[in-house]
């Protein structure tokens, strides 16, 4: 019950946040140099004033800014993200086409990084000071320090070009006509490199955090209690330390959701992943305002969803939260 209430109250705040984001970004984008009509006219290979005027009128760019804003916000309230004139389609449709890919990528990366990070961090903490711990922490530090895109380039080079194990880019084998399980397998293969690349950095973050948190929790009194009860070190780690130690990791993971979604822009570019991050990057160069704003809104909503998800996990793991509220 309290979980539902908490989610409702968060959702309420989230809607306000999203509106604020829409407005802020609206002004940001309109402050940018570059007129979408000029860009679009330019892409046509030639432009004259008549055409640019035509386009401006079609985009509604001839109207005062506040009218444009009012229309936009009015649309959002009715869940209408507007129309992309460059792509000639409603923004919602454009995003809907690309969203599954981004969700698949970010969710996979999120879970891989969280699960692997926690598992490796826990096992490193169990071997603290031993060579295997040193190797793991050093690796984590390296992943942490390596630029994402560089790792991506290297990964493509090694696993795709040299070894030929995995496809280096794209979402699925184009035109293969796979269906059902074969298609899932195919997408899965394409997913491996981007998800790992995106996830590795966060895995390193969570691993270090888990390790530190485990070591910290291991100092707490109740661990001593557990030991005094005659529990084996393994059971103590699993039942007592880990559960308490992952709480801050989960919080961090929620807070970093924004970074994860942002990092997808880079990953999607390098791996030709047809997601909304790329859509945004490409729309930016065309000043396709509505699309950029739409992507911002949707990705912010994703971040909020990640936050709510980690919140729920937190509430499930920690009985104190719900009761206190």
């Amino acid at each position: 019950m309290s979980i539902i209430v908490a989610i409702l109250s968060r959702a309420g705040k989230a809607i306000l946040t999203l509106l604020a984001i829409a407005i802020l970004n609206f002004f940001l984008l309109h402050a940018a140099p570059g007129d979408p009509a000029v860009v679009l006219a330019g892409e046509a290979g030639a432009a004259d004033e008549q055409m640019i005027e035509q386009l401006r009128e079609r985009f509604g760019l001839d109207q005062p800014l506040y009218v444009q804003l009012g229309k936009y916000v009015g649309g959002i309230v009715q869940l209408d993200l507007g129309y992309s004139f460059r792509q000639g389609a409603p923004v919602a449709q454009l995003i809907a086409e690309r969203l599954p890919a981004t969700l698949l990528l970010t969710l996979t990366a999120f879970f891989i990084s969280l699960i692997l990070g926690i598992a490796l961090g826990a096992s490193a903490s169990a071997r603290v000071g031993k060579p295997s711990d040193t190797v793991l922490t050093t690796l984590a530090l390296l992943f942490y320090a390596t630029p994402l895109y560089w790792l991506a380039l290297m990964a493509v080079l090694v696993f795709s070009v040299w070894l030929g194990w995995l496809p280096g880019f794209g979402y699925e084998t184009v035109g293969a006509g796979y269906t059902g399980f074969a298609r899932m397998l195919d997408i899965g293969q394409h997913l491996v490199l981007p998800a790992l690349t995106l996830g590795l950095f966060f895995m390193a973050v969570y691993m270090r955090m888990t390790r530190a948190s485990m070591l910290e929790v291991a100092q707490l009194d109740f661990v001593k209690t557990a030991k005094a009860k005659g529990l084996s070190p393994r059971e103590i780690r699993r039942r007592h330390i880990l559960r308490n130690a992952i709480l801050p990791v989960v919080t961090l993971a929620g807070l970093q959701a924004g970074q994860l979604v942002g990092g997808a822009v880079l990953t999607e570019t390098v791996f030709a992943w047809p997601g909304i991050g790329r859509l945004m990057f490409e729309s930016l160069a065309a000043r396709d305002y509505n699309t950029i704003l739409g992507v911002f809104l949707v990705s912010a909503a994703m971040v909020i969803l990640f936050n709510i998800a980690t919140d729920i996990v937190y509430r499930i793991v920690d009985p104190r939260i719900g009761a206190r509220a």
Partner: protein
Amino acid sequence: MWKRFRSNIGAMIGVALLATVIVIALIAPLLYPGGPWQMVQRPFLAPFSVDGLPLGTDTLGRNVAAQLAYGARVSLLVGLVSTLVALLIGVPLGALAGFYGGYVDEGAMRFTEFFQTIPNFALAIVLVAIFEPTLASITLAIAIVSWPPVARLVRAEVMSVRTREFVDAARLAGLSKPRILIQQVLPNTVSPIIVMASLMVATAILLESSLSFLGLGDPNAMSWGYMIGAARTVIRTSWWLSFFPGIAIVITVLALNLIGEGLNDAFNPHLSRKGKA
């Protein structure tokens, strides 16, 4: 504290690495008076293939070693300045929120959450694109996306320090609230802020390089991210062009992380303490 820091091998390695990078950055103009853009030889010379060009030349025949050295200046500068700016935003906001609580806190935290909800790299891209890529706009964009964790940290620290009894004592001494905040509370939050700042410099360097990689770097400033971005299309034929700046980033970020961790351990000895009577 210094003793603890000095006895931390990782941290000392970090200091040594960072010091090397800083020294190289400082003496770059002495080492390579021609600057990083000068075309000195044939393009695509492999490392060590020609005397005086230990790291080879790039797509236009420019000296990679010189580019690396000048790149260090930009990376460090962007990292430092953006962190400073982020601190300038985050520390006061977090401090006010944590110290005054109530509506101030509520407002400041909403504001912070708001910025944390926008995917930060996407926001940075948009900001840089809007302000046009210059060192200033890149630095500012990085600062704008990286201050929220600072605000949160400072807020939490201030809230915890605020309840300590010496703060009450200061109130009883008749000190004004702003004075208490600045003189009594903030100095006690410095350690975690320093730790976080050292890690933020590292993150900022990564962010700058990511932006440059996407073509959103300052075209008049040679940076490591620019080098990788410029070299990614020739990664197959001229591995060294993206390899060396990549390594430079890894080393610098690693060094900063090691230092940050070392500082953290030094500030919080209870985590590393091995038992006491």
